[in-house]
Structure formats: C-alpha cells, structure tokens
C-alpha cells in the first residue's frame, strides 16, 4: 500500500492538479512554484550523486581494480574543486560587505574556483564540443556510403546548405540570371526553399507529433495506465 498504491495516487493527484491549475488565473503560477521546488530538490539530490561518485571511486581504489589511479585523480579533483568553491578560496570581497568573506565573488581567475573554471573546466568542455567537427565529417562519410535514396536526400540537402553558407554557393550560382525561370537554383533561393518550405513543413509535423506523444505519455502516467515507473514487488 505505502510502497505501491500511494505513490501512484500521489503521481495522479499532482498531475491533475497541475493540469487544472493552468486554467485558473488564481493558480496558473503554481507551475513556477513547482519548478522552483524541483530545482531545490535537484540541489538536495546532489548528495546522492556525490555519495555515489565517492562510493564508486573509493571502491575502485580500495580493491585496486585496474585503472584505480584514474579514480584517485577523479576524487582528488572533485574534492579540491568542492573545497575551493565552498570556502570561496581567494574570492574577491564584495565592495559593500568586504567583512563577510562568503559574500565575495569567485568568478575571476583570482579565486580558486574561477581559475579552475577558466583553465580546467572551460577548455575541457570546449574541446570536447569541438571534437564534433571531426565526428560530423565521419558521420557524413558513413551516411554517404549507405547509398539509399533517403541518405542521399539527407546528405544532398546538408551539402547544399553548407555550400550556401560559405561563399562557394554564391560563387557557383551567381551566373544564373535573377529574373530567369531557373532563378530558384541560385544559392540564396535554394536555401530559402529548403528552409522555408521543406524544413518548416517537416518541423511542423514533427512538433505536432511530439506534442501528441508528450500528451499521451503524460496521460498514461497520470491515469496510471503506465505504472512501470513506480511499481515493484
């Protein structure tokens, strides 16, 4: 009862309340309140995440499993960042309250936290993101080898858009007179046709589908048709 029925009832009730609240001016801001509560809940849940991170890596180190040294590196960098950021080590005092250390700002590289963000986290994430340039190329190559009509359509469109975005597109098609019947083959018109006609239509249908899917998924959960999430035993 406590473990199976009540959670389902809570789920249904909170779902129905949030649906109905949207239709009354008095309660329409409830969703904002719920979002703010969720953010706090996510903040509290970090205890679980951090606990799991510690447990997994400590276990690796203590059992000397292969690669335990990497776990040690993770733990040290995690701990160092946490200590530096919580203590606001090196923070620039707040001009209005220089006597309250924890009110200081730690965004500049003067503070340990800002330094770690600027020289460790930010270059790492930016480089990881930049790797995508290579992956895009290899994905295009792979799709090109698929040789079916759909793959050709996808890549052909991608190629046209890429050409149009760089100067090559205009260079290749500028000889087509602007008032001729074939003017639609000029780079800028091709881009407009692809984005405004095909992409708009495709996106509209995808969005309508997603909206229905979202609604149906929500209904299945709220009405208790799909109970997989909360029922065990």
């Amino acid at each position: 009862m406590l473990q199976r029925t009540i959670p389902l009832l809570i789920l249904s009730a909170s779902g129905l309340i949030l649906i109905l609240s949207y239709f009354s001016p008095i309660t329409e801001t409830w969703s904002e309140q719920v979002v703010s509560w969720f953010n706090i809940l996510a903040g509290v849940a970090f205890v679980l995440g951090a606990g799991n991170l510690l447990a997994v890596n400590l276990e690796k180190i203590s059992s000397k499993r292969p690669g335990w040294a990497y776990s040690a590196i993770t733990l040290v960098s995690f701990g160092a960042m946490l200590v530096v950021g919580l203590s606001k080590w090196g923070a620039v005092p707040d001009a209005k309250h220089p006597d309250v250390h924890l009110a200081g700002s730690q965004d500049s590289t003067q503070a340990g936290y800002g330094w770690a963000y600027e020289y460790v986290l930010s270059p790492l994430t930016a480089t990881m993101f930049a790797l995508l340039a290579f992956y895009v190329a290899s994905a295009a190559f792979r799709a090109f080898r698929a040789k079916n009509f759909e793959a050709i359509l996808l890549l052909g469109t991608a190629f046209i858009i890429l050409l149009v975005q760089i100067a090559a597109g205009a260079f290749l098609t500028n000889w087509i007179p602007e008032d001729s019947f074939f003017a639609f083959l000029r780079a800028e018109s091709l881009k407009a046709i692809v984005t405004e006609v095909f992409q708009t239509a495709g996106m509209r249908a995808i969005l309508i589908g997603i909206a229905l899917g979202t609604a149906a998924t929500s209904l299945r959960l709220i009405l208790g048709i799909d109970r997989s999430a909360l029922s065990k035993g």
Partner: protein
Amino acid sequence: MQRRSTSVVRESVRLLQRVGEYAAACVSFACVAMALFVARDVAASPMPPAAENLRLEDAPDDAGGVLVVFWKTPDPAVSAGVVIERSLTAAERAKNADELWIEVERLGRDAVAGVDGSYVLKGVPIDEDTRVRVSILGTDGELSEFVESAPARPEVSLFAFKRLPLLLTVIVVSLSVLVWVALARSGRPLKIRRIAALDAVDEAVGRATEMGRAVLFVPGIQDMNDIQTIAGLTILGRVAQTAAEYDARLEVPTCRSIVMTAAREQVQAAHHAAGRPETYAEGNINYITDEQFGYVAYLSGHMMREKPAACFYMGAFYAESLVLAENGNSIGAIQIAGTAEPSQLPFFVAACDYTLIGEEFFAASAYLSGERDQLGSIKGQDVGKAFAIGAILIGTALATIAALNEGGSLGMWAGSAVASMRGFFGG
C-alpha cells in the same frame, strides 16, 4: 456549466456595449477634433484639454489586483504626456491622513500619441474601491485639469476564458486516448504497425548476451523535469526487463542525481517484473557528472574500453548525440536512439542503426509493454493526428477559397471562418 454559459452571455453583452461605446466615442471625438481644428488658429489655450471618457475597468481573466485605465486624449498634437494618480488604499490612508491621491506613473509622449490611451494598474486591493484621476501634460509643460474616474474594484476570475480553446483541445485529445483504452479493454482488436527500431530491442539485448558484453543505456542529459527523460526511463524499464530475462548486464550511467535514483527504481521494478529480483545490481546505475561534456567524455572513454554490444540513447540529447553515436559506431555496437529533440534527430538518423523519431519515441514504451491498455493509448494518439490533419485541411481549404474569391461574398465568409479557426488554435 451554467455558470460558464451565463458568463459567456455576459461577456458578449459587455462586448456589444463596448462596441457601442466606441462608436459613440468616435463620433464625439470627431466633433471635438473638428471643433479643435477650427478653434486652433483662433486662440492657443493656456492649458491642454483634459482627458475625456476616462474609464477604469477590471482586467479580465486574472487573479484580481489589476485594473485598466482607458482615456481619450482630445488633442494628441499638443499633448506631451499623461500623469496617472490613484486613490489611496485604506491601509495607506490610515498611515497618512493628509493625502488623497498618489501618483502611479508619469507616461511620456507615446501614451498620448493616439487618441485612445490605456494603462494597466497593478497591485490594486480586491476588497475595496479604487479610483484614478488623469491629467494630460501639454507640450508647453502645463498640466490639464485632473479628470476623475468612477470607482472600480478588480474581479477575481476563477477560469481563464482565453484558455477555453486549449481546455477543449485537451479534452478532445484526452478523450480520444481514453476511448481507445476503453475499447482495448472491451476486447476490440488492436492493430499497430511494426516499429523496426523497437522490434530490434530484443535482438540487440540478445546479441549482447551472446557476446558476453554489456548493454549501455543512456537516458539523455536532462533532469526528471523533462518529459523526454521520463519517457526514456519508461523505455529503460522495458529494456531492463528484457535484459533481466536474458541475464545480460545493463549499464546506466546518468547525468543527474535524481535520474540515477529514478533509473534504479525503474530497473529494480523491471527485475521484479521479470521474476528475477535477485539479479538486480544497483552498482550498474551510476551518477557521473551534471556537466554535458564531462558526461560525454566519460561515455566515450567507457565505450572504447568496455565495448558494449548494444547502445540505447533514449531521452533528451543535445550536441553530444553525434559523439555518442559515432563512438558506438566505431566499436560496432547495435545502436538504437530515440529523442524528441528535433535538432539532434539528423545525427541519430545518420549514425545509428535505428532511430525513434519524435512521436515514435513517446509511443515506444507503450508499444514495448504489449499491454492492451497501453496499445489502446497509441491508437488514441492517431485520433489526435487525424484531428490535426482534418483541421489543417479545412483551414487550408477555407484560406484558399478566401484567397481565390477575394472581395466576393464566399471569400469573405471563408476568410472570417479561417480567421476564427486560427483564433481558436491561437495562431
């Protein structure tokens, strides 16, 4: 319901009244404007003309506390602004007995550029009368005489009438799902087309079992407040059940702490459902980091080292989609992706073996469950699509008639019909 219909009637009567008022106001304005036009050259008045037709009305469809001030500026040409004052509330009067009015706002030229001016007055007490007074500021810096409004009190609306079309649509969509669930229960045959990506789930898990390798399930990078993560986790439940039946190792690294907790619940429930609660291993479901690219760095390295035989990407994905799919490709894993993030679908489509596109992703969990209720709800989604197609066809036809017969009576009728359809759907 009766209450609603009476208020609809009340609304329409109010609308008619307002049209009448507008007409009267326009006529009177025209007279005043003409008189002023004639009088203008004769003598320049030392004081700008005072505001006319000052009205203070409740703003509809809100939780109270808001009134709207309407006025007419007799001569916009010589007006440079407007001063709006309101009466003090009872609480304010108790503190300060000398004052009667308090200035709320001093608006600039834009407020008096046209004849009709309006201002939204917020924070008005709902349990007492409030009045406003308005004075026009002339271009010469003189203030006109203050004009005082009748008292008004903001009304609290229980229902937002502007959302009535939404409510109707929600009811239509919900009913179509519910009716089909009921039909499914009554034993009506349910035919659902095959979805290749979902038929491949068993195959992928089976292959991983045969090869003695793990199954990797990535539930996206968003938290539980994203419906895609919730949908992804319901799919995780089905995949976990299959994995439990095959006794394959299922790894679920997560990007959020709450998702880790929810995934553990889901997988544990799946092991119970498969009748093998003893094989559930919590250690396979771990939190990595909230950072998108930190999570990707972990997954990339992990995939290269552990070489999972099957990779599932089900949830909300952003730039990392392609990194994951390409790495999965390079280790030769079967990859099944599902997301409703339109910007990432191209990459999954290009690099994965199977991709659940948008709505398919949301139907997947229901499809995989094989339960009649859930299959019925998928049918309900189709009714929703039929509704959409019907509305689009009718709307487009009407718009086309309106365009072809522009100016004609048929065209006029079609034009107004399509306009009200667009209004209903909020376009």
